[in-house]
C-alpha cells in the first residue's frame, strides 16, 4: 500500500540503497528489514513487528552496514580497479532499528551475519523446551522456521535447562507457557501501545526473565488474542484453539468478520467442514493486522450440528389461510425443490396485493442477496433489524450488522434502519399485512412476537438455523452462513469486500441468493443468474454506487466505493 | 449275449478306473510337485463321511486331501458355464469332447491283465492294436486345434497352431520308434506283444531297444503336452494356450483329457517295453489270484511311469519352440529310422529268436 502514491504531493522521498548487491530505491525513513523486503531479501526477526514500536531486543536481524568512501571534501575514493571504495562498519547492526539512508549498503548473507544468527538461535534454544510435539505453534513457529533456515543445527548445551512456569493462566482467553517465551516483548508492546491496556511485563533477570501480568491485572482485553497471533513462538496460546488441531492440517480461506460493521479482514482456518479458528488478515485500510476477540471467537454457530439442512413446509400452510395452527411445525421437512414448488403459487397469489405484504431483510446478508431481496420486496414495505453493542475507539463499531451500508444502498433497510418495524407489527396486528418474508432474522426478538406471526396467512423464512420465527413459519428455506458462500459486504467506511466459502454444510442448504433467484423465477421474473459473478455484474449495472465494478476485481483487500 | 454283457462290464470297469486314476493323478501331481518344491501341497479336504449337528463334518484322509479331486469336480460342475460372445459356438462346444474321446478309446486295445476266470483282460483284442492306438490318438489333436480356432482369440489360436505342428511331428517319431518292436514280435496285436515278452525278456532289456524306448518316452511327453514339451499351453507365453477361453466343466474336460492321454501313453509304454502285466517269477497262467496279481502288476508299472511323468515335469524347464522342432525332426526322426535298420540287422544276424 505504501508504494502506491495517490497524488504527486504525497510521493515519499526515495533513497538509493544496495542490499546484497541489488541496488533499489526505497522510501526514506523505513528501516533495513522493510527495505530488504522491497529487494526480495528476508531478514529474520522476532521482536520487530511492522505495526509495533521497535524494541530491538531479540538481536536476530543482525546485518552488515556500509557505505561508499569519500574524502573529507566529498570526493569519492577509488579502488585501483576503478570502483569506488566501500567501508563496512566494524560491528553488525540490527536491521529493525536502522533507518535507511542515501547510499547505504546492506549485506545480510555474509559469514559474520550467519555467525551472529547461529549464535542468537543457539542462545534462544538453550532454555527452550523440546515441546514441539504438543506445542500448538508447531508448523507456524518462527523458532522452528529460523532454526531450519538460519540455525547451526546442533546445540552445545549439556546442562539442565532453566525451568519456568508452564500453563500460566494470563486471562480468560490466553494461556502462557513461560519456558517457550523468547522474550521478544511483542505482546507487551501490543497491549501497551495498540490495545492501550498496559498489563504485561517482564520480571526477574537474565535467563530467569519471565513474562507475567502486572499484579492485580489480567490479560482480559477484548484484543488479548492478538498477542497470540504476534507471538513468534508457542508461549501464548489461544484457550479456544489450544490442542484442538495442528496448524498444518488447516485450510486457509480469506473472509471477513461479520460481527460488526468494521468488516475486519480474516482468515478462516478449517479442516474438513469444521472451522477451528479465525485470525485477522492484513489490510491497512480496515484493520491493519488486528481484530477483536469477540469477533474472532464468533464462529461456533457455523459448526453447530443442529443447523437447518432441509426445507420445511409447515402443515399449517396446507389448510385454508388465516387459521394459524401451531401443531407439528417441526414436521414437514421436505426437499428444497418441493418446497419451492408449493411456495411459488402461494407467494404469487399473496403478492398480488403488494400492500398486504411486508419484507424484513437482513443487514447480515451479502449485497447480492440484498439486491435480489429488494427486487422481491419491490412495492411492499421492507426494513432490516438494527442491532448494536458497545463500541470502542479502536476496531469495534456500535453497529453489529456487517452490511448496514449495503442494506441501505440497495434499498432494503429504511432510514434510519428499523424505523418501519413498528409499522409492520402494527399492520399485522390490524390484519392489514397478511404476508411476511423474513431473511435470517428472529423477528420475535424485535417487536413482532409469535402471537403476531400466528395471524399471518403466509410467513416465509430463510435462515440457517431454527429460531422462534422459523418455528412459526409456513415455509422455511435453508440458507447458509457467511463462511459457506460467496458474496460482498460493504463496511461502515464504504469499503466493498468479498467473502469466500471456507466450509460446506451440505444437504439442501444453499446460499440465499440462489433462493431469492428461484423465488423471483417462480414469481415470473427473468433472473437467471447462474453464478455470483453474473449476479454482481447485474447489480453493478443497476446500482450507481457500484457502477463499473467487477467481482473478480474487488480483490482480497476490497475497494472503496462512494455510498453517497 | 453273455459275452456282450461281459464286454460292457469290462468297458465300464476300464472307464471307471481310468477316470478314477485321472482324478487322483491330479492330486498326486499337486502333492508331488509341492514336495519337490519343499511345500506341503493340498492337505485339507477329506472325503466327507458324516455331517454332525453342529455343522462340522467327519472326513476321511483330510491330511492327504483325499477329498480334493471330488471337490475339484464339484467346483468345475457348479461354476458358471460361461461362453464368450466372440467364439464359434458349435466347435467351441465340440472341442472338449473331441479332446476327451480319443484319449479314452485308446484303452480299448490295451491288455491290462492276462485273464480272470477265462475272460481275457482286454476290451477288444484287435489284431491291428497298435495301428488302432495311433489312429485314434492322432484324433486328439483335432480337439486342441478346434479349441484354439473356435475361441477366436489370439492366444488360443497360437496354442492350437503350435499343438498341431508339435503333435504331427512327434507322431512320426512315435510311430517309427515302435516299428522295431513289431519286427521282433512279428505281430501288431498288443496281446501278442505281451505274450512275446512273457516268453522272452521284456523288450526294454535288449540294448537295441533302449534307443526306441527313449524316443518313445520323449515323444509321448510331447504327445501329451507335458513339460518339457508343453508348448501349446505355455502359461508364460500364451496366457494358458488353447484353453484360455474355456471355463468350468469344459476346461475340466481338457484338463482330464491331458491326464487321460498321459495314462494312455504310460499304459502303452508298459505294454510295449515293460512287459505289460508280466513279471519274472510270477506264473503266466493260473487262477483268479494270478489274474488279479497280473492286473496289480500292470497298475504298479503304470503308476511308476505316471510318477516319472510328474517327476520330469517338475524337474525340466520348457523347450523353446525351435528346439522342440529341431529335436523332433533332426534328431529323433533320423535316429528312429536308423534304428529300424539296426534292429533289422540284429534280426538278420539272428540275435533275436
Amino acid at each position: 500500500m505504501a508504494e502506491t502514491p495517490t497524488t504527486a504531493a504525497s510521493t515519499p522521498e526515495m533513497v538509493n540503497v544496495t542490499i546484497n548487491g541489488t541496488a533499489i530505491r526505497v522510501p526514506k525513513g523505513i528501516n533495513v528489514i522493510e527495505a530488504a523486503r522491497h529487494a526480495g531479501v528476508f531478514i529474520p526477526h522476532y521482536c520487530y513487528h511492522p505495526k509495533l514500536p521497535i524494541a530491538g531486543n531479540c538481536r536476530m536481524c543482525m546485518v552488515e552496514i556500509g557505505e561508499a568512501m569519500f574524502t573529507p571534501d566529498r570526493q569519492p575514493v577509488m579502488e585501483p580497479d576503478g570502483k569506488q571504495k566501500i567501508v563496512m562498519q566494524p560491528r553488525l547492526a540490527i536491521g529493525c532499528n536502522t533507518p535507511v539512508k542515501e547510499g547505504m549498503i546492506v549485506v545480510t548473507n555474509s559469514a559474520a551475519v550467519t555467525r551472529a544468527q547461529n549464535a542468537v538461535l543457539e542462545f534462544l534454544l538453550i532454555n527452550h523446551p523440546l515441546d514441539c510435539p504438543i506445542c500448538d505453534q508447531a508448523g507456524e513457529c518462527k523458532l522452528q522456521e529460523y532454526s531450519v533456515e538460519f540455525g547451526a543445527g546442533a546445540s552445545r548445551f549439556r546442562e539442565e535447562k532453566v525451568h519456568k512456569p508452564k500453563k500460566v493462566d494470563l486471562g480468560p482467553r490466553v494461556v502462557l507457557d513461560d519456558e517457550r517465551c523468547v522474550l521478544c516483548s511483542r505482546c507487551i508492546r501490543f497491549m501497551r501501545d495498540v490495545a492501550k491496556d498496559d498489563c504485561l511485563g517482564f520480571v526477574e533477570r537474565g535467563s530467569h526473565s519471565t513474562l507475567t501480568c502486572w499484579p492485580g491485572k489480567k490479560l482480559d482485553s477484548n484484543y488479548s488474542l492478538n498477542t497470540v497471533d504476534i507471538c513468534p513462538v508457542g508461549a501464548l496460546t489461544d484457550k479456544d484453539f489450544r490442542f484442538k488441531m495442528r496448524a498444518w492440517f488447516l485450510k486457509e480461506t480469506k473472509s471477513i468478520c461479520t460481527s460488526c460493521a468494521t468488516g475486519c479482514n480474516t482468515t478462516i482456518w478449517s479442516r474438513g467442514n469444521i472451522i477451528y479458528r479465525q485470525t485477522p488478515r492484513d489490510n491497512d485500510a480496515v484493520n491493519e493486522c488486528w481484530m477483536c476477540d469477540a469477533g474472532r471467537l464468533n464462529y461456533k454457530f457455523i459448526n453447530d450440528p443442529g443447523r437447518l439442512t432441509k426445507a420445511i413446509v409447515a402443515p399449517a400452510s396446507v389448510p385454508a389461510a388465516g387459521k394459524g395452527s401451531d401443531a407439528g411445525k417441526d414436521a414437514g421437512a421436505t426437499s428444497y425443490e418441493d418446497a419451492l414448488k408449493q411456495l411459488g403459487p402461494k407467494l404469487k397469489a399473496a403478492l398480488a396485493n403488494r400492500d398486504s405484504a411486508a419484507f424484513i431483510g437482513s443487514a447480515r446478508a451479502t449485497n447480492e442477496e440484498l439486491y435480489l431481496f429488494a427486487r422481491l420486496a419491490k412495492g411492499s414495505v421492507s426494513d432490516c433489524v438494527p442491532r448494536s453493542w458497545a463500541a470502542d475507539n479502536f476496531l469495534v463499531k456500535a453497529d453489529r450488522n456487517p452490511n448496514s451500508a449495503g442494506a441501505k444502498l440497495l434499498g432494503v433497510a429504511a432510514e434510519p434502519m428499523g424505523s418501519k418495524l413498528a409499522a409492520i407489527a402494527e399492520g399485522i396486528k390490524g390484519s392489514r399485512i397478511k404476508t411476511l418474508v423474513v431473511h435470517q432474522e428472529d423477528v420475535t426478538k424485535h417487536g413482532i412476537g409469535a402471537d403476531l406471526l400466528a395471524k399471518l396467512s403466509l410467513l416465509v423464512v430463510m435462515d440457517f438455523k431454527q429460531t422462534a420465527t422459523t418455528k412459526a413459519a409456513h415455509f422455511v428455506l435453508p440458507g447458509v452462513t457467511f463462511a459457506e458462500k460467496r458474496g460482498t459486504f460493504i463496511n461502515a467506511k464504504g469499503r466493498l469486500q468479498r467473502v469466500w466459502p471456507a466450509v460446506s454444510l451440505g444437504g439442501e442448504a444453499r446460499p440465499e441468493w440462489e433462493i431469492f433467484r428461484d423465488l423471483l423465477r417462480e414469481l415470473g421474473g427473468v433472473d437467471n443468474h447462474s453464478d455470483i459473478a453474473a449476479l454482481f455484474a447485474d447489480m453493478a449495472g443497476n446500482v450507481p454506487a457500484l457502477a463499473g465494478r467487477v467481482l473478480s476485481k474487488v480483490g482480497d483487500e476490497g475497494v472503496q466505493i462512494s455510498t453517497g | 449275449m453273455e459275452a456282450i454283457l461281459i464286454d460292457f462290464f469290462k468297458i465300464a470297469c476300464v472307464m471307471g478306473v481310468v477316470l478314477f486314476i485321472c482324478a487322483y493323478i491330479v492330486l498326486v501331481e499337486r502333492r508331488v510337485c509341492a514336495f519337490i518344491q519343499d511345500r506341503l501341497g493340498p492337505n485339507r479336504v477329506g472325503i466327507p463321511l458324516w455331517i454332525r449337528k453342529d455343522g462340522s463334518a467327519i472326513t476321511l484322509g483330510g491330511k492327504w486331501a483325499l477329498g480334493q479331486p471330488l471337490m475339484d469336480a464339484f467346483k468345475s460342475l457348479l461354476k458358471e458355464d460361461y461362453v464368450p460372445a466372440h467364439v464359434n459356438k458349435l466347435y467351441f462346444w465340440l472341442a472338449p469332447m473331441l479332446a476327451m474321446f480319443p484319449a479314452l478309446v485308446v484303452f480299448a486295445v490295451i491288455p491290462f491283465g492276462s485273464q480272470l476266470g477265462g475272460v481275457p483282460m482286454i476290451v477288444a483284442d484287435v489284431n491291428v492294436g497298435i495301428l488302432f492306438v495311433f489312429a485314434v490318438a492322432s484324433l486328439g489333436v483335432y480337439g486342441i486345434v478346434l479349441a484354439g480356432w473356435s475361441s477366436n482369440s489370439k492366444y488360443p489360436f497360437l496354442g492350437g497352431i503350435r499343438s498341431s505342428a508339435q503333435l504331427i511331428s512327434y507322431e512320426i517319431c512315435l510311430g517309427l520308434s515302435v516299428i522295431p518292436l513289431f519286427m521282433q514280435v512279428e505281430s501288431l496285436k498288443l496281446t501278442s506283444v505281451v505274450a512275446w515278452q512273457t516268453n522272452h525278456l521284456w523288450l526294454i532289456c535288449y540294448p537295441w531297444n533302449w534307443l526306441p524306448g527313449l524316443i518313445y518316452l520323449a515323444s509321448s511327453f510331447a504327445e501329451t503336452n507335458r513339460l518339457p514339451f508343453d508348448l501349446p499351453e505355455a502359461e508364460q507365453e500364451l496366457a494358458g494356450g488353447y484353453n484360455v477361453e474355456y471355463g468350468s466343466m469344459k476346461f475340466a474336460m481338457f484338463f482330464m483329457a491331458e491326464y487321460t492321454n498321459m495314462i494312455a501313453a504310460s499304459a502303452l509304454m508298459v505294454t510295449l517295453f515293460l512287459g505289460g502285466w508280466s513279471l519274472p517269477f510270477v506264473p503266466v497262467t493260473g487262477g483268479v489270484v494270478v489274474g488279479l496279481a497280473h492286473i496289480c502288476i500292470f497298475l504298479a508299472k503304470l503308476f511308476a511311469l505316471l510318477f516319472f511323468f510328474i517327476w520330469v515335469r517338475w524337474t525340466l524347464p520348457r523347450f523353446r519352440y525351435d528346439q522342440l522342432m529341431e529335436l523332433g525332426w533332426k534328431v529323433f526322426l533320423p535316429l528312429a529310422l536308423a534304428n529300424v535298420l539296426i534292429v533289422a540287422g540284429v534280426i538278420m544276424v539272428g540275435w533275436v529268436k
Partner: protein
Amino acid sequence: MKLERPKLTLLERLYLPAIVSGLALTFSHIFRKKVTLRYPEEKPEIPPNYRGQPVLVKDEEGRVKCVACQLCEFVCPPRAITIKPMEYPENAKYGKVEKTPAEFDIDMLRCIYCGYCEEVCPEQAIFLRGPYSVTGLSRKAMVFNKEKLLELGGTLPDPIKKWQKK
C-alpha cells in the same frame, strides 16, 4: 559384444546326464523338511522386530506415550489415522505432559503398513509390531481404536523419561 558359446562335449550335448542329475536333485527334495506351515493350526514364530501392524505403546509406568502431535496422521499416505487430541486435566498424574489423544483410530482397511507413522513419531509411541493377522467381520470392526491399539502394543520401556524432567 559377441559372446562365445561354450563348446559342449558329446556327453553334454546328449543332455541325458544333466537330466538325470536334475531328476536326482528334485527327487531328493521330496524327502526334505517342508518350509510351509499348516497356518491356522501351526503359527510361525514372530521375531521381536517384526514389522506387523501399527500399535500404540505405553511406558513402564503405564503412561500412553502418544502426545497427540498428529504427525503420523499428517504423514500417513492412505490417511488411515485419525486423532482427536485432548488436554490432560490440571491435576492429572501426567498433567505435565499436557496433551494426550482422546481418540486414536487407525483404519486397518486403509493402512498400507508403510511404517511412516513409526518413523515420524517424535515420542516413540507408535510402532509396527508383532500382530500380523488383522481380520474383522465389518468395516467398523477394522477401525482400531485407542484401547485396542494400546492392548496390541503393550509396554515399551522409555529410558529417557523426557516428560518427568519438565
